[in-house]
């Protein structure tokens, strides 16, 4: 797929490039906050920012449905449940405390991350990517058709996994309550 535009549209293209840089900066800034924030709730907010930035990049890639699902599932559901868990699993007094990062862990994390970034970056920038000619356009109609025909088994399997996850989390959260001395059953 190549993006070629009428030269008369060039101001709009420059503006779109600028907005692309903006979305990328939002995604990366959110990621930095999510990883580096001292308080847990700030990390969750950074994650939400990063997810919104990536949703903007999905729009640039022409997959509007994926962008909508990103907002709906990640920002709407996953982040909210993480927020609930932060409120349930951490009293305010402990949230104020510095998590106290061990220097050895910091060095190990930075080494592994930089090494993998260097290796993958060399591959990404060094490999001559070549596009195949398009056979199936990725319209939302065709995606839905594929979900119900070619990928129907995977689709059902995912719904089974979600069902097991829901039942499992309910069972887990109930069982922990009985053991606690103050929380009765």
């Amino acid at each position: 797929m190549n993006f070629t535009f009428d030269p008369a549209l060039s101001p709009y293209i420059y503006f779109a490039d600028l907005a692309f840089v903006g979305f990328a900066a939002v995604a990366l800034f959110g990621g930095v906050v999510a990883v580096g924030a001292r308080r847990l709730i700030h990390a969750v907010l950074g994650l939400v920012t990063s997810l919104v930035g990536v949703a903007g990049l999905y729009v640039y890639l022409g997959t509007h449905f994926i962008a909508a699902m990103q907002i709906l599932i990640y920002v709407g559901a996953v982040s909210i449940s993480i927020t609930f868990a932060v409120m349930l699993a951490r009293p305010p007094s402990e949230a104020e405390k510095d998590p106290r990062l061990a220097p050895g862990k910091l060095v190990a994390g930075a080494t592994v991350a930089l090494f993998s970034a260097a290796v993958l970056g060399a591959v990404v920038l060094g490999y001559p990517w070549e596009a195949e000619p398009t056979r199936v356009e990725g319209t939302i109609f065709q995606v839905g058709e594929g979900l119900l025909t070619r990928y129907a088994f995977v689709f059902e399997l995912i719904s089974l996994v979600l069902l097991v996850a829901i039942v499992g989390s309910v069972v887990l959260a109930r069982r922990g309550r009985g053991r606690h001395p103050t929380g009765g059953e």
Partner: protein
Amino acid sequence: MEPLLFGRLEPYLVISLCLFALGLYGLISRPGLISMLISVELILNAAGLNFVAFNTFLAPDKTVGQTFTLFIMGLAAAEAAICLSIAVVVYRRFRTILADDIAELKD
């Protein structure tokens, strides 16, 4: 004319590479269970962005990447639900969610 950035594959790959490296760093260096879960979400998100970028620019069948990204999102939601309920249970039992302090299998 062609756009400078968003019409090529490499910028998307570099962004997703940066998100992946950030997530990996956080997964190794952060002490809490929920912080590690947040890092895993970043990594999964980078993978989804990669899938859609390859799908849009290279793949002949442009439904495959979108379908896979939808599956990744569903699995990430299931994984987040399980992880969070485990974190809540662990907090009730041990009164902490720092991964280093949870060193007993049996009480």
